[in-house]
């Protein structure tokens, strides 16, 4: 069972390594452009304040990591299930169906971590944000990174098992666009208190907790959501989407 799990992981990492250049382009390009405009160009034009970049950095890292893990799980899986049926070959390996599903979630988490390792130094250097990362902050950063990647890998599995390949583009537009804009990536949640109904409504969005988590780990001096709420929500959403994702995966895998 463990050997099979590792072999499945080995296969996925081999494929990921082969496609590394596309992966780097996918994860790196958008944050690069974003940090260039918002962190370099606009402050110099005097349109936004210099301090805004510090507010932006955690959000950019959060978006890159969560979207990476979600895509890493959802895109291949939706094609596998709906089209090529390649997943059948993995389902015939001597491991439970949940084992196959959990391996996919783990791959999503690993890809997100790699995306984080690329984006964090990139954004940090370009924006010139002053970060003082002590031991506590690094532990927080690791915890938030792992929990957020896990949450969105599991969410990717729910999406992939719920939609047909033809709809995946639509899902990414219709579901992800509001999640990103209402996800507290470009503004801290605490500042939303001037629009109370909005501040409470966005709590339904799991992306809020990921971005706020990165905020409290990277820029603890800035306004951020309370630590316990971030961890409880990230863990709760992760467990819920994992449970739902495994259930739906099982249903799709078995006739």
């Amino acid at each position, binding site marked *: *069972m463990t050997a099979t799990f590792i072999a499945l992981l080995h296969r996925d990492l081999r494929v990921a390594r082969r496609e590394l250049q596309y992966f780097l382009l996918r994860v790196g390009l958008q944050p690069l452009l974003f940090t260039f405009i918002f962190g370099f160009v606009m402050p110099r034009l005097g349109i936004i304040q210099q301090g805004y970049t510090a507010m932006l950095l955690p959000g950019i890292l959060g978006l890159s990591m969560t979207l990476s893990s979600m895509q890493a799980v959802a895109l291949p899986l939706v094609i596998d299930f709906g089209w090529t*049926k390649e997943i*059948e070959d993995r389902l015939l390996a*001597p491991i439970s169906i949940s084992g196959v599903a959990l391996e996919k979630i783990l791959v999503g988490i690993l890809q997100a971590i790699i995306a984080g390792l690329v984006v964090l130094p990139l954004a940090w250097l370009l924006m010139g944000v002053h970060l003082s990362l002590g031991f506590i902050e690094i532990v927080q950063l690791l915890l938030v990174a792992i929990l957020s990647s896990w949450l969105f890998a599991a969410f990717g599995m729910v999406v992939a098992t719920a939609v047909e390949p033809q709809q995946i583009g639509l899902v990414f537009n219709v579901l992800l666009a509001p999640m990103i804009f209402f996800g507290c990536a470009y503004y801290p949640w605490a500042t939303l208190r001037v629009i109370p109904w909005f501040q409470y409504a966005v709590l339904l969005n799991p992306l809020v907790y990921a971005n706020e988590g990165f905020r409290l780990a990277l820029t603890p001096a800035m306004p951020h959501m309370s630590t316990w709420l971030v961890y409880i929500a990230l863990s709760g959403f992760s467990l819920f989407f994992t449970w739902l994702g495994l259930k739906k995966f099982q249903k799709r895998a078995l006739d």
Partner: protein
Amino acid sequence: METAIAVEDLKKTYQPKTRKGVEVRALEGISFQVSRGEFFGLLGPNGAGKTTTIGILTTRVMPTGGQARIEGIDVAHNPVAVKRLIGVVPQVNNLDRSLTAREILQFHAEYFGVPKHQREQNARQLVERFELADRIDEKVTGYSGGMVQRLKIARALMHDPAILFLDEPTTGLDPQSRRSMWDLLSELNVKGLTILLTTHNMEEADQLCRRIAIIDHGKLLALDSPAQLKRSVPGGYLIELQIRGEVKESFVGALRSLSGVVDVKPDHDRVRIYADRAEGLLANAMRLLSNDGVMVTDAHVAEPSLENLFLHLTGRSLKG
């Protein structure tokens, strides 16, 4: 003989996927057993329940009734243990398109915990036997139908399974590739591998299988060796006549009285005559009909075959 596969009153009903859909009763209680080392065939037209049966036996489909055991292990209760024992060649091309052919073989064995040196050795032998060496380090997107099929079988054998399942392995292959596929499968069986295949090709079932189960509409209609099955068709020979107009009851009686005729089945403008010999009978039948002023527009004589048996059992041609 020890039993490799035991199927008992197996049932599968697919629930409708939409509210307006209807439930599909794919299997309505079929039972059979396959001995170790046997070459067993499931013969039936498309939609008969063959793929569902193979799906249940290979842990991919949950039965809604009855039981299926592989080497004594219940497939629904312990699918992981069953997966270790079986190799599966599905009907669709589900080869891993992100990998090269060599990687497909090696990773498959790795999933099954085959040690590295053994994986490499197995892959070498199978690549050679299955004539895949030329393009083994390419991805499989450009492979021909025959190569895809051979690679799928090679992959299924990489972990040295006790039982090999093949779902319509020669569908879509040209006659030459089909022949070489038959040779290959016979060779594997001679070496001791238990094989269960599904097919709607009678010649294939006849050539390869020691025993054949004929299924249609989710029910098992007959189960025996090809020779016995053919013998079980009344008379064995089949003469089919097509006439202008409806077949009258009086013709049927007259045809029945001809010597050698075992059974006569009218069907609108056709009449099927089952007989224990063909010599002279066609001429006699034609004479009888033309004396009555009936015009025969087509006549066909068939030797004893599984096709005749299927026609006899279901009233339909297997070729659909």
